[in-house]
């Protein structure tokens, strides 16, 4: 009969063995995470670390973040713009722990954020390269800048009809509408809301479906605005997907994005007209209409200037004419010492009608001289 030991004794031995091997030794591991369960209130997170070899799972160990390490998850999400969720590959510093009842688990001490940033960046570059490669007519890379067909669509002179894609009851929706509604110029807008989930798994498909719906009614809208509230929202993934970026790049109406991310620009932003926040998208639309109105008011001022200039010239001409008329008036002539001769009440302009013996009247300033012609001859005056 072999010796028997109690289960707890075995557990103790395992614990002791692992303790001897691993106690005080933290190890960096590379693994995928799965079954991530965050307990936000208790600031704990349970998960599995797995490693796949093709379709096979080569290794799988349980892991846990206790409250001290939980801040690492928050920091990770803030810095990467990526939710800490199933399917992610991460590198973590872990302690190996064994408990007689709960078994083996890896206690996470630290997440290496740079590793994830690096792999996200790599993924992003691959998506961008594929976009350029597979959509040569819609997307071009020139001098490090992406240029898309959508960005080259001109905005109408005035924007009035807006298709708004946003999450229901979100900060983004509120901020956007408030900014539009409170514009100080009194411009009116018609906004049709296309409400959808805008983050999380599969959101790109939902946003894409709304875009397709808008495209089928494109004559009813001037622009599309895609907005999402800022704050601590982190999930950026839908906007970095090939599918959504591709739809936006070739979309038949100008697309403006305000998806509220300070540090990063998503791939979808690069394909559209990007603003940082929903408020800024709305402000840009208001400014656009303001620019139009200014151009119209400038025309009004030019017209007014041109007309008053025209009347100023006419007034000037009239003043000149009046001076000439006054210089030529009989009164002016008589004042200067000239006189004229009347025969039978008519001014004589042709002296050949005058004959000796005729009675004439010579008019001078304030005087009329009556006389009879004695004789006449041809003569030219000696001008003084």
């Amino acid at each position, binding site marked *: 009969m072999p010796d028997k030991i109690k289960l707890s004794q075995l557990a103790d031995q395992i614990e002791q063995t692992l303790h001897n091997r691993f106690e005080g030794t933290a190890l960096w591991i590379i693994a995928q995470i799965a079954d991530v369960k965050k307990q936000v209130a208790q600031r704990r997170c349970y998960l599995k670390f797995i490693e796949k070899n093709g379709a096979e799972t080569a290794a799988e160990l349980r892991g846990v973040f206790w409250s001290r390490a939980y801040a690492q998850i928050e920091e990770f999400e803030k810095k990467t713009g990526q939710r800490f969720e199933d399917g992610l590959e991460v590198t973590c510093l872990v302690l190996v722990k064994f408990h007689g009842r709960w078994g083996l688990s890896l206690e996470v001490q630290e997440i290496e954020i740079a590793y994830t940033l690096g792999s996200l960046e790599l993924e992003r570059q691959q998506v961008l390269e594929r976009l350029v490669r597979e959509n040569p007519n819609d997307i071009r890379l020139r001098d490090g800048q992406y240029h898309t067909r959508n960005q080259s669509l001109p905005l109408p*002179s005035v924007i*009035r009809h807006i298709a708004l894609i946003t999450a229901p009851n979100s900060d983004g929706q509120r901020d956007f509408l408030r900014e539009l*509604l409170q514009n100080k110029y009194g411009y009116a807008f018609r906004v049709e809301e296309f409400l959808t989930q805008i983050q999380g798994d599969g959101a790109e498909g939902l946003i894409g479906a709304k875009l397709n719906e808008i495209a089928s009614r494109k004559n009813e809208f001037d622009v599309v605005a895609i907005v999402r509230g800022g704050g601590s929202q982190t999930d950026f993934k839908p906007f970095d997907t090939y599918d959504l970026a591709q739809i936006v790049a070739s979309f038949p109406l100008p697309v403006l994005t305000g998806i509220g991310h300070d540090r990063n620009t998503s791939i979808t932003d690069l394909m559209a007209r990007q603003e940082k926040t929903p408020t800024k998208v709305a402000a840009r639309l208001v400014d656009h209409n303001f620019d139009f*109105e200014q151009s119209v008011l400038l*025309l009004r001022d*030019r*017209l007014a200037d041109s007309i008053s200039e025209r009347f100023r010239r*006419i007034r000037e001409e009239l003043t000149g004419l009046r001076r000439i008329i006054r210089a030529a008036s009989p009164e002016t002539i008589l004042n200067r010492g000239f006189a004229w001769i009347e025969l039978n009440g008519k001014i004589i302009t042709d002296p050949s009608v005058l004959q000796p013996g005729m009675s004439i009247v010579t008019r001078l300033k304030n005087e009329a001289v009556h006389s009879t012609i004695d004789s006449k001859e041809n003569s030219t005056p000696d001008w003084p």
Partner: protein
Amino acid sequence: MSFSIQPGLSLTDARNQLAALVEKVERNEVSLDQLPEAIRQARMLLEYCDEKLRNISVEAKDAGGPWLTPEK
């Protein structure tokens, strides 16, 4: 003969018409007796732009979502 704004005129076209009118006046191609008519047309175009920008009374029959007009 009498000028009127065709329904559904785009604001781009309204501005272009106004610009053409202003340039004609600036080039002295509008005689003095035609000037009051030119001014009347300009005023109509300006009012049209203002109405469209602020949705003053123009398209109550427009389909789609509600118009958002800032409080005065």
